């Protein structure tokens, strides 16, 4: 296993909140089905499931700075905010609380520093300066975690729309590959090593 990443994840675990609940056995297909439902709901104009309109606009703006739209699609085009909306159900309640509280503080900074009622209405340089100040907070690390997850998780969870996250990485989620897989093994086979 990728042992070196376990502790990083463990930090985000909402341990205490889930203890004592009855055993929840959400199979991945059940989660995916729920996500699909919410996607249809959005398409029908029913909006977000867990986020209110302000949160959705602000989180989308933050996501857009963490993985910006450049010559290639970023978090906005990937629909990361929909991923965040989908996964912030009660099993990630602790993370949602961190986001809500952090967002309040971020909006307070936007008001104080730039006399703006919101983060999303600031220009990019202003947004980046506020995020840089928040870099060491639990809010920012949770936001970064969910934005990256929304960019690179299976599209069924609501983000990574049209696999733009995979494309960015040069990753292709194919069912099968044939050797050679890259430059060095092709060279090895050609030289008959």
């Amino acid at each position, binding site marked *: 296993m990728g042992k070196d990443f376990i502790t990083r994840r463990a930090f985000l*675990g909402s341990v205490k909140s889930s203890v004592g609940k*009855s055993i929840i*056995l959400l199979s991945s297909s059940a989660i995916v089905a729920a996500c699909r439902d919410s996607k249809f709901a959005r398409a029908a104009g029913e909006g977000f499931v867990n986020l209110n309109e302000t949160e959705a606009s602000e989180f989308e703006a933050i996501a857009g700075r963490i993985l910006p739209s450049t010559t290639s699609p970023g978090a906005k085009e990937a629909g990361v905010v929909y991923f965040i909306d989908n996964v912030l159900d009660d099993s990630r309640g602790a993370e949602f609380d961190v986001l809500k509280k952090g967002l309040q503080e971020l909006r307070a900074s936007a008001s104080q520093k730039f006399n703006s009622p919101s983060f999303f209405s600031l220009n990019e340089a202003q947004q980046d300066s506020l995020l840089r100040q928040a870099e060491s907070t639990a809010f920012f690390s949770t936001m970064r975690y969910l934005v990256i997850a929304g960019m690179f998780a299976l599209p069924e969870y609501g983000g990574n729309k049209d696999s733009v996250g995979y494309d960015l990485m040069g990753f292709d989620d194919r069912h099968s590959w044939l050797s050679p897989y890259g430059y060095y093994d092709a060279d090895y086979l050609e030289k008959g090593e």
Partner: protein
Amino acid sequence: MAELQSVSFSTREEVDFVVIGSGSAGGIIAKELATAGHSVVVLEQGPYLQASDFKHDEWGYEHNYDLTWSARKGNVQTFRKNENEEAEPREAVLRYAHNVGGSSVHYSGNFWRLRPIDFNEASVRGTIPGTNFVDWPITYEDLEPYYTKVDWEIGVSGLQGPWDPYRSRDYPCPPMPIKGSDVLLERAAKSLGLNPYPAPVAILSAPHNGRPGCIHCGYCNGYGCEVNAKSSSMVAMIPLALASGNCELRTMATVSRINTNDGGRVNEVVYFDSNGVEQAQKTRAAVVCANGAETPRLLLMSSSNIFPDGLANSSGSVGQNLMFNGYSSVTGLFDEPVNAWKSIPATRVVHDFYELDPSLGFYGGGGIDGRHPSAGTPLKFALGAHDLFGGPNWGSEFKDSLAFQFSHCAAFDGHTTSLPLSSNNVTLDPTYKDSFGRPAIRCTYMDHPDDLSTMKWFKDKSIELMEAAGANRISGSYPESGQTGNVHLLGTCRMGSDPANSVINADHRAHDVPNLFTCDGSSLVTSSRGQPTMTIMALAFRAADLINEAARRNEI
């Protein structure tokens, strides 16, 4: 989920064996006992998934723990580094599957045999003060026929290497095609005068036993195989156990206690069924294969007037001597696309450092293989990439770096020994309970200084290899301040000849309870060089043979 086609037993009907856990060991033992004609009930805490249930779902498996037990599913565990600390609850500390087939469903399938030295290293090297480092009560020769049985019945691909011990039969399948990351490792190792060779893996390179060869999709480590090319006990053993007509597999059955009669013999196994209702299965004997964390917890939870310190625990060794294996990881960036994210985790291994030179001043050894640093998955890579090569961890520059690094990187990973210590253990947490009301698993663990020195040595050697491979940038690490969790759960009910410092004898029978057997990672006496499952499976075939023989002699 699969249909359970099997015989059905009443809980009041005394069966020959209850097997607790259906993983690497439990699946094999259930199949071997049932096909020998014994009535067997397998109690498995998770569901019976099939190839068609598995997906390339990194978020679901790695972040929602869909295939593993965790706090969010009601199985909180606690962790501390030493007994003076108060253990803190965590999402997952000792990580293991909760499905039929256990962690053999989602493992990487690196199947290194032990070598003769592993079994008598304490005698050859000398014991190490302050540790419980001892010889095994069995030898490589005792286990060799069962390693070969694993090769053929479970399904292993490989090629006998220059350092490998004697084998009685060739591998059933040829080695897997080499990956770019292993071309880099092989060329670098040869330039340093080392002897890299094809990694033995429990993944079929060609059709075998009615299963297809690997299609190299890249999702092994942490994932269930979607074509049954990975050789889990779920695909290789459980169907045979059920087909025997003597084995009932009860899924979503969580064992809470093993009861004994006044004579100190096991007579029933208590569990919560899929509806959460407590049941008790009457049985003539029990085989606990619940893994190195759950097996000791169950024995400790099964204390009674006759066994006040826990079942089979007169030695006090139940839960002790927990060994994780150490590791190091060195990542390099290369000019051309390596694409190590395709196909299986590792196709070459360097075993020249199986035993480090004692003159270094510390005990240890291990192997190095070539991999992708994030097991080939994009999300894990994106989350960890910044820690490898620095730079900003958000914004456009970060985004650009991901685009290049994911395909152009290779990792040389070290897999190393751990020493058995009384202070590294599984105990019952005094405060936290799981959703069934069972005391939470409390893990206390700090790597021995020799284990840390070994990890550092392998990190440094891997950097040397990475330089020889021509990497442009190199980043290496090992858990310098000690590990805080792992997936290798070894040594916690170890076998031994001396009932004063071991839990089971060489036949896997508990010293204290004649009709209780345990077999899984907890049985290991020493840690292996970081790839224990091949040995767990070989032990399971051997244990089943010995249990079947004892049953024939009416000596259960």
